[in-house]
């Protein structure tokens, strides 16, 4: 039995079904991300766990107890909001201690825990400040400390970093993950930022239009996307149309050049198939381990700092590949025909 179980969750707003048969089992101490485009139902699902929305159907269990119909203040959860939501009339210390005060813990225990939490978030001296005297990043840390102080069973975060600027976002996400690991708290983290989800999570739930398209660890989500949506949503992806030549051997015609994937592809010879490959799996020049090498003219070159992204033509299609910016080797000229290579195993065949 898992620690947090969502079973057959559905949510309707009027006629509109925004969460469709959502199933998820979360182990104790696991860090789960909900990743998906805007409006796909991430927040709604999270709010059902928190108790702010009632599921139309389905069951939510925390630690074996059915909480589906329990009020939010009886669920033993901690929540962090995008807008921080610190109580403006209270100092940082009183914000952090609020949950324990509500639970009528002894004063000494509250004080000790508040001090401990402030140390944990790296703001040990700011207890007497008011929220409006803190930066956004500091406020969000305090909000995290507040959510964790009463030792909830589950921590829920709804896009906690999206109001912050890029640098703080990266450092804070590492900090959140470290704190989560050190406390071993079961966590659900909502984001639409794939980098966040990939870098922080034990497992990711990729959502689309109210459906959990794929649930898996970051490597699986990135490397073996189960659906076309996941493949396109997570990471950069080259999608190429090819013509199937030999279904049994897995040979396709890619822009006039034969490519053998070495595994059978279903379907009659002559049909069109969609292939997908990550830019970082494609290399310039023949490389040991890359069993497919083809010739392609360079069509575009984009300088992205540490990386140069080259777009090479394969018939009518363009394939992107990344080149580390190395001062010693000059990148190829636009218009030159170069050999590019990849491993057949990295090519995904996508069924529409």
């Amino acid at each position: 039995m898992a620690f947090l179980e969502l079973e057959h969750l559905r949510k309707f707003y009027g006629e509109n079904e925004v969460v469709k048969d959502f199933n998820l089992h979360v182990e104790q101490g696991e860090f789960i991300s909900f990743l998906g485009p805007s409006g796909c139902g991430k927040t709604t699902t999270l709010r059902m766990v928190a108790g702010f929305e009632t599921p139309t159907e389905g069951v939510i269990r925390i630690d074996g107890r059915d909480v589906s119909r329990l009020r939010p203040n009886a669920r033993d959860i901690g929540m962090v909001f995008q807008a921080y939501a610190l109580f403006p009339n209270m100092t940082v210390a009183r914000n952090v201690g609020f949950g324990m005060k509500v639970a009528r813990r002894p004063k000494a225990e509250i004080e000790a825990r508040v001090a401990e939490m402030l140390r944990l978030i790296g703001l040990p001296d700011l207890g007497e400040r008011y929220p409006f005297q803190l930066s956004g990043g500091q406020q969000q840390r305090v909000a995290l400390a507040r959510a964790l102080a009463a030792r909830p069973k589950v921590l829920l975060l709804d896009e906690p970093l999206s109001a912050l600027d890029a640098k703080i976002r990266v450092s804070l996400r590492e900090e959140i993950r470290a704190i989560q690991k050190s406390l071993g708290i079961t966590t659900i983290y909502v984001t639409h930022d794939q980098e966040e989800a990939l870098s922080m999570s034990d497992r990711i739930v990729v959502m689309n239009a109210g459906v959990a398209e794929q649930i898996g660890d970051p490597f699986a989500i990135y490397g073996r996307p189960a659906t076309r949506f996941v493949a396109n949503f997570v990471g950069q992806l080259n999608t190429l149309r090819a013509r199937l030549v030999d279904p049994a051997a897995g040979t396709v015609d890619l822009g006039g050049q034969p490519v053998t994937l070495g595994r059978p592809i279903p379907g009659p010879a002559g049909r069109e198939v969609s292939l997908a490959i990550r830019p970082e799996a494609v290399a310039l020049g023949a490389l040991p381990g890359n069993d497919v090498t083809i010739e392609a003219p360079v069509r575009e070159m984009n300088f992205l700092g540490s990386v140069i992204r080259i777009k090479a033509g394969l018939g009518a299609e363009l394939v992107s590949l990344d080149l580390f910016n190395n001062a010693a080797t000059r990148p190829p000229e636009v218009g030159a025909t170069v050999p590019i290579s990849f491993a057949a195993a990295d090519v995904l065949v996508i069924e529409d």
Partner: protein
Amino acid sequence: MKGNRFWAWSALIFGLIYFALPLIGMTEFSFRMRRGEYSFDAYRVVLADPNFRATFSYSVTLAVLTIILSVCLTVPTAYWVRLRMPRWRPVIEFVTLLPLVVPPIVIVFGYIRLYNTSSLLPLTGTITGTNALLVAGYTVLSLPYMYRAVDTGLRAIDVQTLTEAAQSLGAGWFTIMTRIILPNVLVAVLSGAFLTFAIVIGEFVLAALLNRPAFGPYMQLIGANRAYEPAALAVISFGITWACMGLIQLVTRFSQATRASR
């Protein structure tokens, strides 16, 4: 440009004269009780009058009770409307504005008709009952100001998210109301409270028709029978009103300073 400024100044001066002249005249008159020289005699007489003290403290007590009742009524209502029934806001707002449209005389006759000694709830039969009725009436009169003030105060905070944050930390409705909502709208409540205070101190119709010894009827009584004392009384009550307005300004200014960076 020049002409514009001329007219602006004229309008301002006209306005000032329009408001200030009667005030100055009244104040000047209130000092003339002693023949041939200015003195505070009128004030001395007024302040020494036991009826003045009795009616004034009666009205102050009622004002305080009115403020408490009004806060207990408007803060949860405005909060709930913002949180759960945003579509009802225009309706509620309209209702709270009704006391500005319905004259107090109508309200009080309605009360007398509903709660007279031969009714089911004979509030006018006892002094306590009548006092309660008066507080209820004052609360109605204070609604437009109080509700607006509280609603404006609630607009400054993210009611929904703060409520959810508190709930997720285990707080129930009472805790949310007293520890989070009320403290955050306190400044707004105070400005509503001072206005209510000013209204109650000067109110005449309700108190007179319910026959309670309030400050308003006392002023009227003095005004009908004396020459200089009413002027002094008017200056005093005007001073109280202005003090209330000043306090509102002060409180708002102070709160803006503490929340400057929000």
